[in-house]
């Protein structure tokens, strides 16, 4: 079985697909995390919310509508969260932030249960992507290929925006020393607000993309949180490169670990995380800022 090329292609695609889903999620978190030094543990809940929004909206206006609505809805929630909590917590340091967002996890968990019930929902795969395509002699679900493509596309866009615009430098300056940045006429507050909203929208997008693939349950956000954190810590906080590298490493280790060393599978990734942190205490590709 292992000698068969098809097996490697298929599992490789599986790994890539998982990586891209994690990338969509972790990139938002890493941007908020690394640039604003804001520890948003509720990021997973935003993802869950995106999935619920996509499932609900999808039922009414179809998958593509849901894919559009979910990020917007989550970004809107992000606005509320920012105005009510985050803005006041920015200077409070990671401990307070961990706690407030830890509290938010539970609040949002129960809120989803109250609104959507405790039972699992799901979103259908759109007709356009319902089939399978053949790549390198392997039949593979079209929807999963779509996830891969979407992840790569978002990566490209973000890389372009961050490296080619001054906004990246402004954000980093604000992170370094917000009062000095303000003294240079940078509206630090507004900038962070935008960053936060974009991060939230990406989480919502990840949820919307995941909805047809997985089941939509209240605790899906909690489940995905640890893998996402592992991804960004392996990759290094705040860097796009880190998010993509971490996602790929996680996807590959998880997928191939599961099929090749099933007994070790669940320990493997934690071992890897520990090893990375021992050798490179700041992750593989820490942000330059």
């Amino acid at each position, binding site marked *: 079985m292992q000698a068969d090329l098809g097996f490697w292609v298929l599992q490789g695609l599986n790994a890539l697909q998982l990586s891209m889903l994690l990338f969509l999620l972790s990139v938002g978190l890493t941007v908020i995390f690394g640039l604003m030094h804001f520890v948003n543990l509720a990021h997973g809940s935003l993802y869950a919310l995106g999935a619920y929004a996509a499932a609900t909206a999808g039922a009414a206006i179809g998958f593509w509508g849901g894919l559009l609505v979910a990020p917007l809805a989550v970004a809107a929630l992000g606005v509320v969260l920012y105005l009510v909590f985050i803005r006041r917590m920015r200077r409070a340091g990671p401990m307070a932030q961990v706690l407030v967002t830890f509290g938010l996890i539970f609040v949002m968990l129960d809120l989803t249960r109250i609104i959507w019930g405790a039972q699992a929902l799901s979103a259908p795969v759109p007709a356009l992507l319902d089939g399978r395509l053949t790549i390198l002699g392997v039949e593979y679900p079209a929807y999963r290929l779509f996830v891969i493509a979407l992840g790569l596309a978002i990566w490209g866009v973000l890389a372009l925006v961050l490296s080619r615009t001054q906004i990246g430098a402004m954000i*980093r300056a604000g992170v*370094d*020393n917000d009062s000095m940045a303000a*003294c240079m006429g940078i*509206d630090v507050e507004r900038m962070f607000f935008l960053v936060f909203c974009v991060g939230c929208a990406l989480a919502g997008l990840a949820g919307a993309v995941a909805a047809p693939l997985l089941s939509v349950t209240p605790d899906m956000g909690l489940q995905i949180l640890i893998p996402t954190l592992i991804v960004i810590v392996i990759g290094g906080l705040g860097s796009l490169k880190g998010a993509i590298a971490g996602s790929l490493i996680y996807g590959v280790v998880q997928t191939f670990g599961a099929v090749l060393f099933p007994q070790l599978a669940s320990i493997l990734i934690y071992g890897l995380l520990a090893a990375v942190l021992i050798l490179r205490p700041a992750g593989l590709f820490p942000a330059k800022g």
Partner: protein
Amino acid sequence: MLELNAVDSGYGETQVLHGMTVTAQAGRVLAILGRNGAGKSTTLKTVMGLLPAKTGQITFEGRAIRSGRPYDIARMGLGYVPETRDIFRSLTVRENLELAAKRFPAPPGGWTMARVLELFPRLGERMANGGMQLSGGEQQMLAIARALLMNPRLLILDEPTEGLAPIIVKLIHDRLMDLKQTGLSMILVEQNFGFATSLADDVVIVSKGQIVWTGTPDEIRADAEAQHRWLGV
């Protein structure tokens, strides 16, 4: 140009400024002298909106700026070089400079990247370095260069010569002199008495959060008693 009138300010519970009243005239250089801990830096921070003023008025070109946000105050044309320099450590030297240069386009004859690098050639050699890797003196140059690139109407310098080699101090002195000649208004907080008095048009001395002495450079040079009493020279 900039006026403080009976300003009280401080850090949380600790009040540092007690009725600080001082005026910086347009086109002139005001030197603020005083012992360590007198409240010089606190005055500047309050002007920039980094510390809230509890009472009193602060006006810049006639507009009240008390309790404005630093962001707005900076955009009104105040360029600030803090005593801690506050280089953006995770940005390269170039990025530090561009942050100002790209967002505050130089008026004709204003400060441009090229002119600033001419002023501090040392920085030119370090353009790709991270802000953190600069030596102390290089950081000071960068902080001044950065403020100049904002092409401010009032330049506020908090101990610009601290930690600089004499040759650089001289250089900065000459450049500031040039700036002064172009009519740029400046506020200068200094420990270096000679440096300050040779640049300033007006001198004030701060002690315990209040102005205790006002005059010209010549007057303070002549007033050994005041020097001894307020500056410990």
